[in-house]
């Protein structure tokens, strides 16, 4: 199922110029025990420069920003990320700016991510929000393969559209799948959201209500850390700032998930960074630094 339009890829008028961005990033420990980006393969329009060590609180942490030189994701664009973090390695990945999803009148665009964490690995994946514009169809698939001793903080944020242009859930459809499993294939959890605001309004009780932004923070980590993190993150509804933070334990004892709802991207980002900081303090005994003023 998902979306009937998935079969219409070849009818896209943009088919001839579509982009097939590919990114493979592999982090490992070097001979001195420092985490480095050992493997680094990229296909335009995706760009990743050499890893930088700019984290003021954790100077050994390799930080990478994923950029796209092609502007928004256009009809027929299909991007793939393959990220691996080897034994005991660690990394922080973000994006340079929000990802805009341009209208896809006849087809769709997609992102397929595979994230693999080996024993003792640690990855923070905290990209800027995704903005689905009017008449967009988009499919995102996140496949996570994680060792029981590794820790992954994985966040994603979706706005309701470009509010400046009056867009509020005026996209056609988002199909968002996130699935995690162990190396032996054991499925840990799976979540598939299909959002079709034109078929069925989402600004109703039980779905988005009067919130405009949703974000999910997945924290996959061993049991003891997951319990400590679960206890430290307060679930709350903040009526003044119109935000919701709700934390729950995931199936198969694989970690916890935080759902964040809000109306301003800055508020949601602040909450996600607080959660990420809680995770980092629990696992690596240091907080997330203050965000750069220009971000």
């Amino acid at each position, binding site marked *: *199922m998902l979306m009937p339009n998935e079969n219409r890829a070849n009818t896209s008028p943009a088919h001839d110029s579509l982009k097939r961005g590919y990114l493979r990033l592999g982090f490992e420990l070097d001979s001195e025990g420092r985490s480095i980006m050992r493997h680094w393969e990229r296909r335009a329009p995706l760009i990743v420069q050499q890893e930088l060590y700019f984290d003021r609180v954790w100077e050994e942490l390799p930080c990478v920003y994923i950029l796209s030189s092609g502007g928004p994701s256009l009809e027929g664009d299909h991007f793939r990320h393959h990220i691996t973090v080897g034994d005991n390695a660690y990394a922080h990945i973000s994006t340079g700016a929000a990802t805009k999803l341009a209208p896809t009148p006849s087809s769709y665009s997609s992102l397929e991510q595979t994230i693999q964490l080996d024993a003792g690995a640690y990855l923070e994946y905290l990209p800027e929000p995704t903005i689905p514009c009017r008449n967009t169809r988009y499919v995102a698939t996140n496949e996570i393969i994680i060792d029981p001793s590794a820790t992954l903080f994985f966040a994603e944020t979706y706005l309701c559209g470009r509010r400046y242009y009056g867009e509020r859930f005026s996209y056609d459809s988002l199909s968002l799948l996130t699935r995690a499993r162990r190396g032996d294939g054991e499925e840990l959890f799976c979540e598939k959201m299909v959002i079709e605001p034109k078929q069925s309004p989402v600004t109703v009780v*039980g779905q988005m209500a009067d919130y405009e932004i949703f974000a999910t923070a997945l924290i996959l980590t061993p049991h003891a850390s997951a319990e400590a993190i679960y206890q430290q993150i307060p679930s709350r*509804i903040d009526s003044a700032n119109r935000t919701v933070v709700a934390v729950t334990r995931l199936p198969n004892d694989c970690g916890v998930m935080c759902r964040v709802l809000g109306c301003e991207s800055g508020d949601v980002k602040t909450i996600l960074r607080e959660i990420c900081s809680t995770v980092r303090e629990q696992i690596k005994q240091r907080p997330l630094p203050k965000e750069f003023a220009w971000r």
Partner: protein
Amino acid sequence: MSDKHLSPLLLLMQLSDSALPVGGFSFSNTLESAVEYGIVDSEESLMEFSKALLQQSATTDGVAALNAHRAARKGDYQSIIRCDKALYARKINAEQRLMSQRMGRKLAELCANISGSTLLRRYCDDTSAAHTYAVVQGVVFAEYGLAEDELFASLCYGTASMVLNAALRCMRITHLQTQRILFSLAPHIAPLYREIAELDIDNMHSFSLQIDALSALHEKSAKRLFMN
């Protein structure tokens, strides 16, 4: 009416009865939090909330139940277990998972004891199974010879009656109002069935973020009359 028609009808009524001893009265399906935070405070908002729960239930539990029903009709035990594991892995919220498993185990034990079905007995005794409620319902209905649409109707009725019965205990609402809501929800069931009837287990999906958040909020809530 002949026995041929009466017996399945009576079975359907028995399995759909809110008094079926599977523990449904202990759960509010997130309504308790919705009332606490003022999201549900009237007949109208309860109606909308119930519709959202039905939609969520149809696209997840409904899909799993129908697929389990088909597997059970074929005697395909491995496919039943696959449905069970898949639904469990998609129950992201801890208390929703707890509800599904507790009620599922109760229903499996109950029906394995009263029916004499070897398939149900095997499933009930399988300690590696998750025993999610919707999948157990699928197997039970198949073993009793009840049809897929009857299964789906019973599943939706169970979702609605659970939240409406909980409403009587946690908000200011009358029996008359909850029965009016139940009556008004009926026309929504057939379109939901058409929407999900052909979906396979990999295409279970949902988009009910406020319900998810309410479920998670309930976990740490100080006021807890219900288990979810």
